[in-house]
């Protein structure tokens, strides 16, 4: 049985269908890349899996470890092993990096997680997770916090977006470290070169998975922008 099994998942906001019968499964310790252009439903899917407020499926099922999680709150899902790094992590006044990395995990030593994301613990552990951090620093700390949590499923929502400072190699290191820790990863991105590090990949378009398989196959399909055209004309059963 897959760790995460999503079947015919639909989600509607007002009259807009954001997800429309989406199916996706992720095995334990699998890195699964989800490719898609802007507005195709990538983040919506992440929020539905994580259980964010205002995101409840209008149809379909989400099973995690064989258990339906649709009625669970975020922290209950987190306690089962699901966590997510936002595309733009929030800042916190008065919370140090050291405190942030040890909020609920049992590992009392946060320094190695900072080193894994390329930050010097001596400089950062006492810093606050507030506006004094640059966007790149904050994002690296968020990735370190996910590593420290050792979740069963880590969702990374566009870890490469909006920042030049965070090198692709650092992202790859974090994802590989997750995998080594036994975590499955749902890697949301619109950059095919990042998707290539995954074990499996899918492309989402207009709220549906339109292509699944090896990262090379999906990246090639995505690169061909076939579905970008579909998005204009209407993506339906014609998609592979």
């Amino acid at each position, binding site marked *: 049985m897959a760790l995460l099994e999503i079947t015919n998942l639909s989600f509607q906001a007002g009259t807009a269908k954001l997800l429309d019968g989406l199916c996706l499964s992720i095995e334990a310790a699998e890195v699964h890349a989800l490719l898609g252009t802007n507005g195709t439903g990538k983040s919506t899917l992440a929020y539905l899996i994580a259980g964010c407020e205002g995101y409840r499926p209008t149809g379909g099922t989400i099973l995690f470890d064989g258990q339906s999680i649709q009625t669970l709150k*975020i922290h209950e899902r987190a306690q089962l092993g699901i966590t997510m790094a936002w595309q733009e992590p929030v800042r916190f006044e008065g919370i140090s990096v050291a405190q942030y990395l040890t*909020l*609920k995990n049992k590992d009392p030593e946060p320094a190695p997680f900072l080193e894994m994301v390329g930050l010097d613990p001596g400089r950062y552990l006492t810093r606050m997770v507030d506006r004094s951090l640059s966007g790149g620093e904050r994002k690296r700390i968020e990735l370190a916090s996910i590593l420290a949590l050792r979740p069963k499923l880590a969702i990374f929502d566009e870890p490469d977006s909006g920042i030049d400072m965070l090198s692709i190699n650092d992202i790859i290191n974090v994802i590989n470290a997750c995998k080594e820790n036994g975590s499955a990863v749902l890697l949301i991105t619109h950059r095919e070169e990042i998707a290539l590090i995954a074990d499996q990949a899918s492309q989402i378009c207009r709220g549906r998975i339109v292509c699944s398989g090896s990262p090379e196959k999906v990246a090639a399909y995505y690169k061909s922008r076939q579905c970008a055209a579909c998005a204009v004309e209407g993506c339906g059963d014609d998609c592979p």
Partner: protein
Amino acid sequence: MTALDQLMQAFGNAGGDRAVLADSATAHLVADGHTILSAREIEGVEVEAQATASGISAKVRVRQGVRLKNPVHLCFGVLHKRGSQNISMDVRLEKNAAASFIAHCIFPGAEQVIHTMDAVIDIGEGAEMRYSETHFHGRHGGVEAIPKAVVSVGKNGRYLGEFNLITGRVGRLAIDYAVQAEENGVVELTARVFGHGRDSIVITEKVVLAGENSRGLIKTRVAIEDEASAEITGITEGNAAGARGHVDCLEIVKDRAVASAIPVVRVTNPLAKVTHEAAIGSVDKRQLETLMMHGLSPEEAVDVIVKGILR
């Protein structure tokens, strides 16, 4: 146990370091109600205190060029359940002096206590004063605290003031601080208060940037719950070329508590600039969800966020 011992015990419980009173290199002043319990001067620092018909009158002088290594400790309190304490303070830092003050105002068992403070603080040219004031009003909400201060910051001077009341009840708090900064003067006022029950918090802080290139920041962090109320007014005037000021108010509201924020910015010189930001509401949803994704319950997450902003 003497009144001094009792007050020092409460001082220690409130986070103060009791050893400072025995340190001959540290100036201090300790008063219970209208009784002066202990005072110490050190070289370069004069401490005068006396009981008057209406309360306590205290003067602290830091002489020209004296830069203190140890903070001056002020400990005021009322040990009885009922009582009053009226303090008149006159603090002067002469030219190029530098000193930190740590003040504790402690009312551990107060059920009906009034504490007033009228302070005049004069910071001379090139002088720097850091003033950290921590209040503990006990568990009953029976304190009415009315601290007022008028501060003048001379050319190239600095005044960094902090007010903290985050443990126990507030009761009724009405802060009224006004600071004027001359050329290149720097002012930072920070207040952190956590109100519960029917606590009432009124904070009015005013910074007048009178001198060229003076700088001012008013930062207020308030959390209120139950049926507490908070009204925060931050006023900054930019009256000289190059003056820069900012008012930053954040209030977190829970339960049936009511909060308001009134940032007032006034500029009379076209080369001055004053900005403000104010946010009032429940805990930020995205912050809450982030912490819940780390496995914290909603209650634990709110606690971490509130403690963070009050830190």
